[in-house]
């Protein structure tokens, strides 16, 4: 049986693998951007839920944080739930201390620096004033998240396309040079 086709076939396979590797790298970078955008949307949802829990249901802060976290989901939701569980009179911690502990435990790994800073700023004002003032602070945070989400949506659309093309074509370039 002649194996003359083997070198050409292995070259072709190698090229396909190099292009695929480049494509996977590009697509995974684009995927990371999309995950970050989804996380911003979840943070907005969590803040909206927190605001309605405090203003309409008049739920105490720990319970409001837990419920908001459950409804939002994702890393932001998990952080809110954890802060809710760690704060309150029974835990003898204020919201800022509970947040620092929750961030040290780990869910913040998938949160962007903007989100962590926003939650820290909000935590300083939660539990230290009446429910109307707290709702106002939460609404200010919601406005910040919304404007950041709008900017990020445009950025994400352009960058995701760029990363996908870059990944595929860089793989193709390397395959051509190596062939």
């Amino acid at each position, binding site marked *: 049986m002649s194996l003359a086709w083997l070198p050409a076939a292995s070259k072709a396979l190698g090229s396909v693998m190099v292009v695929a590797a480049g494509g996977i790298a590009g697509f995974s970078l684009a995927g990371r951007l999309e995950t970050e955008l989804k996380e911003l949307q979840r943070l907005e949802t969590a803040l909206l839920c927190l605001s309605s829990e405090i203003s309409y249901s008049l739920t105490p802060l720990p319970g409001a944080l837990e419920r908001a976290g459950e409804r939002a989901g994702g890393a932001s939701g998990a952080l809110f739930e954890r802060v809710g569980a760690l704060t309150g009179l029974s835990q003898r911690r204020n919201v800022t201390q509970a947040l620092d502990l929750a961030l040290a435990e780990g869910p913040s790994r998938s949160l962007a620096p903007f989100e962590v800073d926003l939650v820290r700023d909000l935590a300083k004002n939660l539990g230290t004033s009446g429910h109307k003032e707290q709702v106002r602070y939460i609404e200010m945070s919601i406005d910040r998240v919304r404007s950041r989400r709008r900017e990020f949506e445009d950025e994400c659309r352009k960058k995701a396309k*760029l990363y996908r093309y870059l990944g595929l074509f860089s793989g193709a370039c390397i395959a051509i*040079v190596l062939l």
Partner: protein
Amino acid sequence: MLSTDLIFKIAGLAIIVSVLHSVIKQAGKEEYAWLVTLTGIIVVLTLVTRLVSDFFQAVKATFLLP
């Protein structure tokens, strides 16, 4: 004899670099687009360096230059 493989490689690289240039320029990063084009030129030059060197050797030998 000039290898046709090299011509196809250079053509393929040129097409890919021009597409990348357009895509990156459209994304608003014009300076990176020019960097990609420059990198493509450098890569092509390295591919043809040996041929250019052979060419100069052939010219020297033909015209008996020192």
